[in-house]
């Protein structure tokens, strides 16, 4: 059991990458987050994935609509603060009934050091749900695979925005050298 836990704790970015491949996700829109850095590297190295680094996260919401119109599945990777940037653009998913899976690494959530991260981090789930997004949380590394799979399935099978919030308990808090 211990080895399984250790493996999930370190390998969850690989698990997500494998799920993106399994569900044929071809467009990966992102604003970088340290929590997603390993996954981002894997996606960039994959010639069958179009990785688009955004100026701001709501661009990715609009892009997922375009990708779906053109027959390619997309995903949006971002930090919890980026969810706030997406609010109005998520109306596109509700209006057009577009699959829009989002994988959100949390800040301002568990053991946060930076007070500026807290307001948006605490509001992330509420804001997403207010805009009609189905939200799953993963607060243990071993739960990430099942949660992300549920988020992808729910988006592509039922045509709507969905999200997995990956808790800061898994990612850890950035302490700027002040542990």
């Amino acid at each position, binding site marked *: 059991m211990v080895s399984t836990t250790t493996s999930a704790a370190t390998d969850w970015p690989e698990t997500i990458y494998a799920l993106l491949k399994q569900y044929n996700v071809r467009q990966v829109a992102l604003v970088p987050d340290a929590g997603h850095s390993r996954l981002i590297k894997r996606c960039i190295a994959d010639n069958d994935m179009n990785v688009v680094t955004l*100026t*701001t996260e709501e661009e*990715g919401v609009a892009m997922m609509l375009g990708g779906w*119109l053109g027959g390619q599945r997309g995903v949006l990777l971002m930090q919890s603060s980026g969810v706030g940037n997406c609010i109005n653009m998520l109306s596109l998913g509700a209006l*057009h009934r577009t699959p829009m899976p989002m994988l959100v690494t949390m800040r301002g959530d568990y053991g946060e050091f930076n007070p500026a991260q807290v307001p948006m981090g605490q509001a992330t789930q509420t804001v997403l749900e207010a805009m009609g997004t189905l939200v799953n949380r993963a607060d243990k590394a071993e739960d990430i695979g099942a949660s992300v799979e549920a988020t992808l399935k729910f988006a592509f099978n039922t045509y709507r925005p969905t999200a997995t919030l990956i808790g800061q308990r898994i990612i850890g808090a950035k302490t700027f050298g002040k542990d």
Partner: protein
Amino acid sequence: MLTESGKLHRRALVGAVLEGRGDLAVVAGLGAPAWDITAVGDTPLNLPLWGGMGGAAMIGLGIALAQPERPVLVITGDGEMLMGVGALATIAVKAPRNLTILVLDNEHYGETGMQETATHHGVDLVAMAQGAGFKTTQRVNTPEDVPALRRAIHAKSGLVFALAKIDAASLPLVLPPREGAVLQARMREAMLGPQAAFE
């Protein structure tokens, strides 16, 4: 096509740009551009937007990446482009060769009472696109500029940003369908075939 102001008539311009459009997919930003493409002729290959202000160009990028053999045109207003202007950087980095962005610049927010936009005060979206890395940009000021734009849209030989200074007159509303699920489903079927509904 030129009005008394010396600027292009927006609907005549859009009609000329879409002439012989073939398999061209068109995304129109909310407000007057959506009414313009509908006035020229509603078709499943039109996505007229009712919301998502600032997102038109990025929707175009998603389509262009997914459909690399199809020309894709985004027609939007100066206010809508300014709201999502960072997308110019995002799009220029990807530089799909089948995407054109055409801004109809009347220097005003037309749907809300004709308040001035930043372009009225000298902000130059062509220069911003060039700064973002668009290799091909075009200013469309006269009817004679349209054939070159139309060729560029269909050539699929490089990312294009075009800007037309248009007459600011508001024209009669020609509303497209409002049901977003219908707009999405019909465009998917037109681009992907009937099997798109089974995805």
